[in-house]
């Protein structure tokens, strides 16, 4: 083998050039047994590791057995709200839904093109027979987004104001954003079973980081001189926040809301694994059974909904920025 020959040659050359190196290499070969620890990481003994795993899993199971029911009960109001959203979306006559969404699009953008795009996408989804599933998906994403905004913006403001809290939260957000969703689905499913509520929680965990981060960022990016002016005119901290920082951070916060919606939609397929109905479930079935067309129809329906949400929230964000020119 020419490659091995070349390697030999190179090694020879190397050894010849540096006699000290030869000695070391020989020493390494002879003392193979003693040097073993260098190549095998000193890990905790398998028995101890097993005990740790068993201990944690065992106590989580015990926790589930003991409190599972009461935890589930405490989420009952949330369950009611989610069901209510679902019933509204699936129960309402389809022309009404189209009309309402078109109205929202018009209010947000004041652009005929956005409204036409929204109506066209909805009609296409309906014609493909995915209306009911799409409504289920929209209702979940809508609920998760509202909840994420409601929790995320205050958290973002706190992150900005409380330095230590912000540091802790930042690490937590890093974990939330990089931890594979399947991992945190395990305890959620153990505690709450499968269904709407665990699906909703999974979606929120996945979708809330951008709105928190961008609220904090938006407030931090507010022009120093404007803040100084607010101080110079005797603003209290809350006046400064609500009259200056928050309105000026609004475009960035809108970008955060937009990202949150997109992440929530991206999560619906994974959420369907724990019993969330809608377009995600169809995709999951398509994967399991290798139904390519079903997969692609439902996939495009999700994309269509994403584009609707995206255009509406973007257009609204841009209208907010109307008076601000290029300045940040």
């Amino acid at each position, binding site marked *: 083998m020419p490659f091995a020959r070349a390697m030999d040659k190179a090694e020879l050359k190397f050894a010849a050039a540096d006699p000290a190196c030869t000695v070391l290499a020989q020493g390494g070969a002879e003392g193979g047994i003693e040097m073993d620890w260098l190549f095998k990481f000193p890990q905790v003994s398998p028995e101890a590791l097993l005990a740790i795993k068993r201990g944690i899993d065992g106590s989580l199971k015990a926790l589930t057995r003991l409190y599972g029911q009461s935890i589930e009960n405490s989420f009952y109001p949330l369950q009611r709200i989610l069901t209510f959203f679902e019933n509204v979306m699936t129960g309402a006559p389809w022309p009404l839904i189209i009309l309402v969404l078109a109205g929202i699009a018009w209010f947000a953008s004041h652009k005929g093109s956005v409204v036409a795009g929204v109506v066209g996408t909805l009609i296409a989804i309906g014609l493909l027979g995915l209306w009911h599933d799409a409504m289920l998906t929209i209702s979940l994403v809508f609920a998760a987004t509202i909840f994420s905004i409601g929790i995320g913006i205050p958290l973002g403001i706190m992150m900005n104001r409380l330095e230590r809290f912000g540091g802790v939260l930042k690490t937590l957000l890093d974990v939330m954003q990089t931890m594979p969703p399947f991992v945190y689905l395990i305890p959620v499913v153990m505690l709450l079973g499968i269904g709407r509520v665990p699906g909703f929680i999974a979606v929120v965990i996945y979708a809330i980081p951008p709105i928190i981060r961008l609220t904090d960022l938006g407030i931090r990016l507010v022009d120093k*001189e404007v803040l100084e002016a607010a101080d110079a005119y005797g603003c209290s901290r809350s006046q400064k926040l609500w009259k200056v920082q928050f309105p000026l951070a609004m475009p960035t916060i809108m970008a955060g809301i937009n990202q949150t919606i997109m992440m929530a939609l991206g999560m619906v397929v994974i959420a369907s694994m724990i019993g969330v109905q809608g377009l995600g479930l169809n995709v999951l079935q398509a994967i399991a059974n290798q139904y390519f067309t079903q997969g692609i129809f439902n996939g495009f329906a999700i994309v269509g909904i994403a584009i609707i949400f995206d255009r509406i929230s973007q257009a609204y964000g841009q209208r907010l920025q109307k008076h601000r020119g290029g300045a940040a």
Partner: protein
Amino acid sequence: MSSNETSIEIRDLYKIFGPSPRQYVDSIKNGLTKTELSKVHGHILGLNNINISMPGGKIQVVMGLSGSGKSTLIRHVNRLIEPTSGSILVNGRNVLDMPETELREFRRTHTAMVFQRFGLLPHRSVIDNVTFGLEVRGMDKAKSREIGMRWIERVGLNGFEARYPNELSGGMQQRVGLARALSNDASILLMDEAYSALDPLIRTDMQKMLLELQKELKKTVVFITHDLDEALRLGDSIAILRDGEIIQQGDSQRILIHPADDYIRRFIKDVNRARYLKVDAVMEALGQSDTGSMPKLKSGTTLEVAAGELTSSSFDTAIIIDDSDRPIGAVSLRLITAAISSEGEAEVK
């Protein structure tokens, strides 16, 4: 308006930037230099032993180049920056002793500030920017709007009240900044390089407007600038700052005729002396000769105007009269020429 009584006294003010500034105040007082402080101890000396006494109702200009500490100094008056040591007395009350709520109240009612880059709120219309200070104070909307509209008119922006700042030119934006400050009806007006970002013609307009308003409002104005012409035109009193230290204080006449050092001499070299020097500073005692037919000039006339008057008359000496028309001195073309052409220390009295 009884606001013209507000005086500002800055005493022994030091500002050191760095992680533990307090421990170096004494060393600075004992002669540690700025360079040593920064090289050996890693702290920056922002302001070094500043003492200024600003009488009420006058325009105090603080002039210096960038890095001289002038913007730091003005921010001490309303305590946007905390000093390391010293005191700032406004009407005898030390701003530095005020607890937070009192300080906020002081900022709301006693001071108003105009910024170099305007510091306007881009999401608010002109009128909402102008009434910002009143809104913060909790004044009801109708009343603050009425006051705001009055000032918008005064600064020449009628018809623009519903516009947004980014729809206005720089000069107009600064008018909004000025209207916002004046709406506050504060006795102290802090202007931090307020006109430095404007182009020269608009700057001159704004200077004129400030002087006109000041005639009537008599606020205690602290005006920061890097432009000596601006300082000479506006300042009732001028303090020149370099490297955080005041190197000369006095009115424009004093600075032009008796510059404290070469640094200032270099500064005033390119200034049009005839425009800023006044006849009072160069006149000599009245002679015995017949003064009846000589041209009369009011005290406070600039040399530029005096020279023009004399040139168009048949005399080469004019009588200076005070406000009650009493002659107080005389000035000749020779004196005027000497004062205009002399660099730095003039031989005039």
